[in-house]
């Protein structure tokens, strides 16, 4: 008697979903560093060191919130971790150092057209 049952084979899900050797997954991350990403971030939360198209920063998950950052225009910004977010900006673009208290410029060393 012939057994004519289908001999068509189907892999198990675990075999079929296995990545081919050498293939790096999209969004692959190793040691906290993402491959093929537009940004480089090392660490998490307030212990993050990051670089992306806005610049380089330390101390926050994102550039905007970081206490230390340098943007692509050559401005170095130190932000105090207080309730006023007081800042010291070393500004190579405008050749000055400015101290901001609660967002308002209060002291300047360098050049300022027409004062504040």
């Amino acid at each position, binding site marked *: *008697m*012939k*057994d*004519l*049952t*289908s001999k*068509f*084979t*189907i*892999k*198990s*899900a*675990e075999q*079929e*979903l296995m*990545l*081919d050797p050498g*293939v*790096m*997954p*999209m*969004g*692959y*991350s190793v040691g906290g560093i*993402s491959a*093929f*990403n*537009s*940004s480089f971030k090392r660490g998490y939360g307030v212990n993050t060191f990051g670089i*992306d*198209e*806005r610049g380089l920063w330390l101390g926050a*998950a*994102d*550039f*905007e919130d970081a206490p230390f950052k340098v943007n692509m225009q050559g401005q170095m910004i130190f932000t105090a971790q207080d309730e006023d977010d007081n800042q010291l900006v070393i500004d190579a673009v405008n050749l000055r150092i400015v101290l901001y208290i609660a967002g308002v410029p209060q002291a300047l060393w360098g050049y300022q057209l027409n004062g504040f």
Partner: protein
Amino acid sequence: MADIDFKFTITDFNQGLSPLAHLDSKTFIGGKGQASEMQADIISRPGFLTQSPALSNLTNGTQAGVVDQLIRFILDQPISASLTYGLGTTKLFRITPTTVTSGGSPSFPQTVTNMTEGESLVRLNANLYGFYNKASGGDIFKMPLSTEVIDDDWGSATDQALENAPHPVAVKEDIMLFGNGRYVGAYLEGAATLDVQKLDFGEGSEVVDIVFTSNLFWIAVNSGEGKRGQIYLYDAGAQSNTLADEAGLGDQQIGFLYVYNGNVYVAYEDTSSDGYVIGYVAGKAVKPLRYFSGSLPTHRQKTLYKDTILFSSSGKVLSYGASVEQLPLQISTLCDGGYSTIGAVSCPFGTPMIASSDGSSNHRLAKFSGYSTDSNWKSIFYDITDGRRLGKIQNIIITSKSLGANARCDISIEVNQGATTSDSYEYSGTGTRRKVFRSVNVPQAEDYRVIVSWANGNSTNDCPLRKIEIEGNFVEQ
């Protein structure tokens, strides 16, 4: 009767539809448990073949209650173990595992001013946000979960109106990213900043789905009037203006993305074969896994059920995946979706809910409950020729779970590509586990397939088959 010349053993029904079923409903290609056509349940008890789940309307779940319009989206991640929300064409619905809320304070369902198409809902901490289209353009509403009072035009008041387009949304901590036509919008709750045009994919592009995994947002975009699908990765902080990476599907439009076990699955159109594909992102490529026919499901029509992705296609509910990873991946038509137009497929409380409409005055929100008699399974066709000789099916032997009262299915044999069908053989009887049907009345033939029908089945006690054996002889021409 002469000795048996050939035998088929049909088992492993968990294999689902044949890989070519979307191209040929009478295909010969497939595994021993695969179907050429089906609407049956092979995922609840892998290895067994049984009838589809039935749909039972929720209390107030039709136009006779409060569901007087198509519910287009159901929040798949519930607010609590007994509360979620659904978005219709003009109203926000409050949904429990059994009931669509009617009345209360504020009174549900609540009309969202100027909404004509609900698109999606998302919970971001203490608030529910709803994305919707209007007669022209779109907007976002905000509803504190504590008061359930809707701020209808929160989006346009905070930033600006949305495009009239699909609005998929994904959340990471206090950040939500949403589709807005050619744009992706972002809301950073901590900074209270909403930008509905954060990223621009250009004229003719449309964001069709967004998911979050691997600490990145994954954005599916169709371009060129929906002809070209592309998946982009975007920074989890949603503050960068550049994309991280991308993978292209070529000239195939994307329906939805779905994250499961760290893999990103993609439903997309296979333009070369007039069908559709579920694949997954493997490296920089999208690897097709299983094919289906019908229609392309959207971001509103996907959920997870019994470790498989459930989605809709042309009024049916399909299942893709494997119940356990040691079994093969399968795709199968699990059940009918109710009315012809399915709005939302969701599973917020563990039992799937399907919202559908007949496109006129009948609407329903129903969940799986009991067994359907609108259910059938057809094996692939098998060749039974041997040189000059044709095959004559003699016996059908069925093995099942021990049947409950009134459990029943009917077996028949179709030969010569459907030209002739045998009598129908009733498989039933309380306690039945095996039955042999002799002298099957089909002529000698070139090919055959087995048909199982639960049209006479029972809604309480199902009829789960484990094995179908076919025996026959070769007959000289």
